[in-house]
């Protein structure tokens, strides 16, 4: 998680992964202002189909925003309020929470 939060300084993430995260930052903050330099980096590391897949993953992952915005109406308490929950989606799109023990 620390690598992701401070991804530019990470020794673990690859150049391509850092570019993907820079694009994600653009999606989150100023989607209409992707710099020419970032566009060039993205095209150097990813094909057009990969970039479309990335954009659609950005779309899908962002679906936690309504839950956060709706606040108490969400009625879905964090599994652990002090940390992010580890989970993945299986091949059928089911939400699988990893055990914290």
């Amino acid at each position: 998680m620390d690598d992701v939060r401070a991804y530019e300084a990470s020794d673990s993430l690859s150049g391509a992964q850092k570019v993907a995260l820079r694009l994600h930052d653009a999606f989150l903050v100023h989607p209409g202002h992707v710099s020419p330099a970032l566009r060039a980096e993205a095209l150097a590391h990813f094909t057009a189909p990969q970039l479309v897949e990335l954009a659609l993953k950005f779309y899908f992952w962002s679906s936690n925003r309504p839950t956060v915005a709706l606040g108490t109406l969400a009625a879905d308490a964090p599994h652990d309020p002090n940390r992010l929950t580890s989970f993945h989606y299986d091949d059928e799109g089911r939400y699988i929470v990893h055990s914290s023990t």
Partner: protein
Amino acid sequence: MTWLPVRAESGSERDGVFGLMPDVDELLCDILSVADQISDPWLLECCHFRQSQLMSARAALAGVDASLLADLENWHASAFFSNRERAALSYAEQYHLDHDVISDEQKDQLSRYLAPREFVNFVWALHAYEAYARVLALLDIAPDPNPAAKPRHRRSGAAEDGRTSGTDATAEGGMWSLLDPAFGNVYRTLAQAVVRQKLIDEVTSEAIRLHNASHQGCQY
């Protein structure tokens, strides 16, 4: 034009870009269609146009009535909009800028006009369109050469400033029980389609998911 090296065979960049992933594109269209059905489509469309203005999503704004766009640019002062519409536009703007700090006043204002079930469905519908506009803006997809005239929906009687009333105003339950099942179904189908895409490796996908959760204030 988009910065992706994509040929727009039909003349539509949108179709050329999303045509690279046709199964997901179909579901994306489905989720937007269901979004229209679970909320006041005119209200939703106005909010979508305003959010698209904020992020320069030019493909989403093509074909929109120029007078409506001018009113949306100045919705705070425009006499065109009702109080109900202004409450929705205020919420939608803040949702775009930072969904985590929508004020109690903004929520209360909108709650005066949308009962809990309507509120939940409006927010999910708003999100479906807002995130779509982000994708259009990120990839800088050009407007279709012959865009359909917009708005597509007509202002309904609900555009008036009627307050919430009736049984729906007292609907109880968590978000998932209030969300229209049709939206939940198409959302789950989209989830399945997205996680099945494997052009992006799993480590990168997971890094993006964690980066998103960290940024969005999500602890789930």
